């Protein structure tokens, strides 16, 4: 069972997310995260799905996706070097006394503070999923009030 990051170019049609997500659901494929947005080409969107499965499952995921008429191209990004990033907004409990410590963590992770309230701060972190996991772990002792992660978006490195 390996983790794979799959990039899917789709027609930007109503219901296309439902078609793709439904396919994963009914065939028992796992979705760890899913992101969707516009692509470089007007009318086409790009979905990035992080999934786990053995080789046979990953092969089936690709083949079954291609059966959807609205799917144009499927690439398993994990097959070659890739850049994978997600963004997290972390609302952390931050009494004035604790703020310098929290800012230390933020700086170390090259994250940023995007909002400060009376007793909270919103930290914005960007990175691969391991990095996001790590900053969340470090902020936990202060008390995380709310956490929102975008899921991974990704592309292959270089000209390919």
């Amino acid at each position, binding site marked *: 069972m390996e983790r794979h990051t799959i990039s899917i170019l789709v*027609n930007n049609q109503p219901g296309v997310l439902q078609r793709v997500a439904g396919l994963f659901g009914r065939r028992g494929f796992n979705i760890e995260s899913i992101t969707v947005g516009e692509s470089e080409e007007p009318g086409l969107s790009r979905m990035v799905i992080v999934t786990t499965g053995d080789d046979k499952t990953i092969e089936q995921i690709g083949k079954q996706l291609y059966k959807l*008429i609205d799917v144009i191209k499927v690439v398993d990004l994990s097959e070659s070097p890739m850049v994978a990033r997600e963004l997290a907004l972390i609302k952390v409990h931050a009494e004035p006394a604790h703020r310098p410590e929290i800012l230390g963590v933020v700086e170390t992770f090259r994250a940023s503070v995007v909002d400060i309230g009376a007793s909270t701060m919103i930290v914005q972190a960007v990175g691969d999923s391991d990095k996001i996991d790590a900053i969340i772990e470090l902020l936990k002792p202060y008390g995380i009030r709310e956490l929102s992660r975008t899921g991974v978006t990704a592309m292959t490195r270089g000209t390919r």
Partner: protein
Amino acid sequence: MSTQPAALRSKNELIEKWSKPEVITGSEMLLRSLVLEGVECVFGYPGGAVLYIYDAMYGFSDFHHVLTRHEQGAIHAADGYARATGKVGVVIATSGPGATNLVTGIATAYMDSVPLVVITGNVPRSAIGTDAFQEADIVGITMPITKHSYLVRKAEDIPRIIREAFHIASTGRRGPVLIDIPKDVSAEKGLFKPVTEVNLRGYNPTIVPNKLQIEKLLKAIAEAKRPVVLAGGGVIASGAHEELLRFIETTQIPITTTLLGLGGFPSGHELWMGMPGMHGTYTANKAIQGADLLINIGARFDDRVTMKVQGFAPNAKIAHIDIDPAEIGKNVPTDIPIVGDVKKVLELLNREAKRTDQADEWRAQIAAWKREMPLRYEDSDTELKPQWVIEMIYETTKGDAIVTADVGQHQMWVAQYYKFNKPRSWITSGGLGTMGFGFPSAIGAQMAHPDRTVVSINGDGGMQMCAQELAVCAINNIPVKVAIINNQVLGMVRQWQEIIYDERYSHIDLAGSPDFVKLAEAYGVRGFRATNKAEAREAWEKALRHDGPAVVEFVVSKYENVYPMVTQGSTLDDMILGDA
């Protein structure tokens, strides 16, 4: 009988008549687009959301519309029409319950890769999402069971959508396409421009196979000592029966055809071993298990064929030819994958394939199995045996009828005892196993082939799931010959309960079923009943001679089982052979 509309003109005349750009309603665009696709017959049922469409059909005579008595009957009839012809079947139903009544039929067609275009009405665009009267999200409901679907957003899209839908339904791996048309779109006026080109970037079925894989298969054939061909519905879908016959005659490889592959290869041929799988022949199952090369031609390694996958064809190198790449390796690990159209693949193979000279001993073994372990049943002079009835129907129709069957024991007996020789003469729900499919699908087959004998063989259970369509046969004089194999019980369930559930017969007694002769006559259809061989032959021959629809009820033995039988969790060579 006449099923062709009186005013039906030649295709070219119709194209000329209906191709003119013109400002018309969405409903009129729909009808014209259907005609331009060559549609001759649609099956449907009107209702609120399709009133504009039916209004446009008032007096419209360029295709035939068959009004069924239930939407499920309509879609099964459209499915039977498609299976009998290879053309796209068309069905129309209204929104909400009309649309949801199609769901079983859509799933049936999807599982057996049948080309259908399913047109549903929906509530007006402004009402979508408000839980309006008779609203159902049929596009969402049917996403898992359609090849593709459309919610039409403006009338001017209709010609393009119809063109795309027919293209998608009838190419690659065939399947049903649903088009949902909101009521106000069907009323909206717009400029109608016929569409002939299809531009679908995400849809390019592979037709021509990879040459290297073909060479690999040819090499494997040359080396094989115990080769077997497993041919399925793909042979019939691609029209490859002649190429298949040539391939088998050249290579002399023994062949088994799946339930949906029956008729794709002549049953009388000495190399034909019958059907494989759960109720397959001894020879076919033994041959698969003993094979050193198994060539799957357009079948999908369904679990009723493979039974326990670990242990299926344990000694064989597996070659799999399929137009759908996702089928290859899905259920059975494959050594030689060949993606392509079966006909094209066989044409290429036939150029270089040679007789399998090393397989003479194997052929002798298979001939011996066929001789020693044929299909058999214990006949009786006091009781009517269902297998005997099927053999009698085969004999009296000279094996030349189009036969539809429902689902259950009788279906397996037809598959075993009716020897099909031609493609598209056998219609049954294989993948989904839809009870209620057998009879209405025969109506569609008869509409497609007014001059052929169409026989529909049903159990007493399944017949009651769509019996209302007898009205359609009566009113249109559609001369389907309906055989009801009445054992007064849900036979296949009874068989499983006997063998697997320690004879705990739970809710299988169909006592209270109607008198089928009277039921037929209530609809104005001739009815006959037979309880012994003499009556059976006489009643059946009368029904065949009758100029119109007829129902013959065969009252058969209640305790007959389908053998051989491989139970779930067993491998193919672990067959229960029965006590005959």
